[in-house]
């Protein structure tokens, strides 16, 4: 059995299909590198959404191989031997199955190698294993189609038609229409870095893979009406599973990965914790966060612990969601946004001390960024602070730099005790979710 398999691995189109899948899968992953740089679960999304292209190519690759049996015109000769049908088909099916699964997993392995040293939880690899099964099933079903219809137009038409059906279904589907599940392309990228493909989505892909595998195996095992009926029933069940099991929309596609979501804390005090997906950034983050905690310690009742802000649900693509979670007592929160250019968050300390540690205190997005920035610069003993965000970089913060500098100068012109009093008053007002904070710095606030 091993020898014919090795022969098929060398002589069939299996290596060519594997190369095609590696190139296309690699290109689609590379085109989104800045999105998944340093993030294993985001690579999982990029890898699984690429199945939209890979599955039709595996199907067509199978059809090319399936045509071979008919082209050789040796069916009568082979049928005269005393071996069952499936035994003859097995080496070719095995070779193509190994090739497509290995190609898909190779792209994931290459991505994992690029992510060495960062969080690599097993849960993030489950989708790739299920997708490998879908590819094997597609290749085997394609072989059956190629054996049945040996015209040379079948492989290209199959590949293109399956692509068109997927894109067409996602275009035609409105909102929560399950028709959109027909497409393996995931239209909603994960909003946060702790999200992984949901169990329901995996189950729906598993149903498709099982249906395709069953179709391929049954059509290889027999050609009678009964075998064919069973094969088509398997295919229909697989497609029905794909459409019906998964829930459309982000909440159906994504779920929190407990391993990625848990806190990892730096050694030493004060305690600084980040989620496991950012653990590789902990040395730099903890130094910045401790600098910020030391600055905050100038204020009475300052927090003694800093933790990365995390959402307890999947993201809603709403920037305000980050300002809703309330921190535990004695703890200051901070959001980690990594600059793809440098691989680090450029404003950890600055964002922690904004408003005296109240930027992420669960009050929503405060409207008085200037007053918060003046307090931050005063605490850090700098002229100003610049906050960075992944949408606009430093551009948003740079708009109000002159006002911040002027505010800091005016504050420092006051006696030391008054400065501390006003910044503490601002911090307390912000913690009470007051929106207009500048009067606390200028001394115009009602006592």
């Amino acid at each position, binding site marked *: 059995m091993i020898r014919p398999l090795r022969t098929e691995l060398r002589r069939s189109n299996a290596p*060519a299909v594997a190369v*095609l899948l590696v*190139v*296309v899968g690699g*290109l*689609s992953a590379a*085109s989104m590198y800045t999105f998944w740089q340093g993030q294993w679960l985001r690579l999982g999304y990029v890898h699984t*959404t*690429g199945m*939209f*292209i890979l599955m*039709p*190519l595996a199907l*067509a690759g199978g059809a*090319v191989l399936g045509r071979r049996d008919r*082209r*050789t*015109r040796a069916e009568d000769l082979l049928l005269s031997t005393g071996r069952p049908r499936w035994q003859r088909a097995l080496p070719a099916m095995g070779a193509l199955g190994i090739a497509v699964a290995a190609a898909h997993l190779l792209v994931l392995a290459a991505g994992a190698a690029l992510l060495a040293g960062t969080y690599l939880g097993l849960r993030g690899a489950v989708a790739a294993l299920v997708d490998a099964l879908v590819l094997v099933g597609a290749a085997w079903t394609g072989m059956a189609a190629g054996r049945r219809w040996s*015209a*040379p*137009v079948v*492989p*290209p*038409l199959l*590949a*293109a*038609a399956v*692509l*068109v059906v997927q*894109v*067409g279904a996602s*275009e*035609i589907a409105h909102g929560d229409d399950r028709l959109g599940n027909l497409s393996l*392309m995931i239209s909603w990228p994960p909003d946060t870095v702790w999200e992984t493909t949901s169990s329901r989505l995996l189950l729906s892909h598993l149903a498709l893979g099982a249906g395709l595998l069953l179709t391929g195996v049954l059509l290889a095992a027999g050609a009678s009406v009964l075998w064919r009926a069973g094969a088509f029933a398997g295919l229909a069940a697989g497609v029905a599973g794909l459409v019906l099991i998964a829930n459309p929309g982000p909440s159906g596609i994504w779920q929190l990965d407990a391993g990625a979501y848990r806190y990892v804390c730096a050694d030493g005090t004060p305690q600084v914790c980040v989620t496991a997906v950012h653990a590789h950034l902990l040395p730099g983050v903890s130094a910045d966060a401790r600098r910020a905690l030391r600055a905050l310690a100038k204020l009475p009742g300052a927090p003694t612990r800093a933790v990365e802000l995390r959402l307890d649900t999947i993201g809603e693509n709403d920037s305000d969601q980050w300002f809703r979670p309330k921190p535990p007592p004695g703890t200051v929160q901070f959001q980690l946004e990594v600059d793809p250019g440098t691989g680090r968050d450029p404003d950890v300390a600055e964002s922690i001390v904004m408003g005296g540690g109240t930027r992420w205190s669960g009050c929503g997005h405060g409207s008085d960024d200037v007053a918060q920035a003046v307090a931050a610069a005063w605490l850090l003993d700098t002229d100003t602070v610049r906050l960075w965000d992944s949408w606009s970089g430093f551009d948003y913060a740079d708009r109000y730099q002159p006002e911040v500098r002027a505010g800091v100068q005016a504050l420092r012109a006051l006696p030391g005790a008054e400065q501390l009093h006003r910044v503490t008053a601002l911090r307390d007002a912000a913690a009470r979710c007051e929106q207009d904070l500048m009067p606390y710095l200028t001394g115009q606030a009602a006592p």
Partner: protein
Amino acid sequence: MTRGLRLYLRSRRVPVAVAGSAGAVALVVAAWSSMMDRAGVPAGLAVLTTAMAAAPFGPTLAGPDPALDRTAALPWPPRRAAHLVACCIVVAALLLAARPFGADFGPVWVVLRNTAGLIGVIGLGAAVAGARAAWQVPVAWAALAAFMAAPGGPRWRHAALWMVQEPGNRIATVTAATLLVAGVAAYAIRVGPQVAPVEATMDQ
């Protein structure tokens, strides 16, 4: 139609390819016009439909036995070039003919550009890897373009995703024209890789 042309088209299985291509486009048009209120097909789906209409013509670029073709004392290069250009015209005509039936695959210029470029890639594929494998690169390229169907970005992106660029995009037009010229020239001159006679007889 001369007898020679009829025999040529039959030997290249052109009727099956035309039927497959037209049938596939008709199915997309029927599904789109019956389920959608608007005629305009989004760029990603339009590009994939173009690839689907063009891909069946890949296998028509070789006959059952290349060695037999070579025995004919005919000037093959212009005929092969004409074959590829005719494929381009048929595919573009199929897509443009869909308009009255409720599916608009884009401005005429974009349909022509995308068809020309994809047919050029098929010609290049046939010359390099053989007619049977010529569909792989254009279908995969179109799928990647549909996957990242956002026009604009740096210049290399205009060239790489030429299929989804705006109608007036010069880089996309030049890329498509270059691919067509290269494909027609490569196919006209080289035909494809040598096929062993024993394999040629199997490749029916």
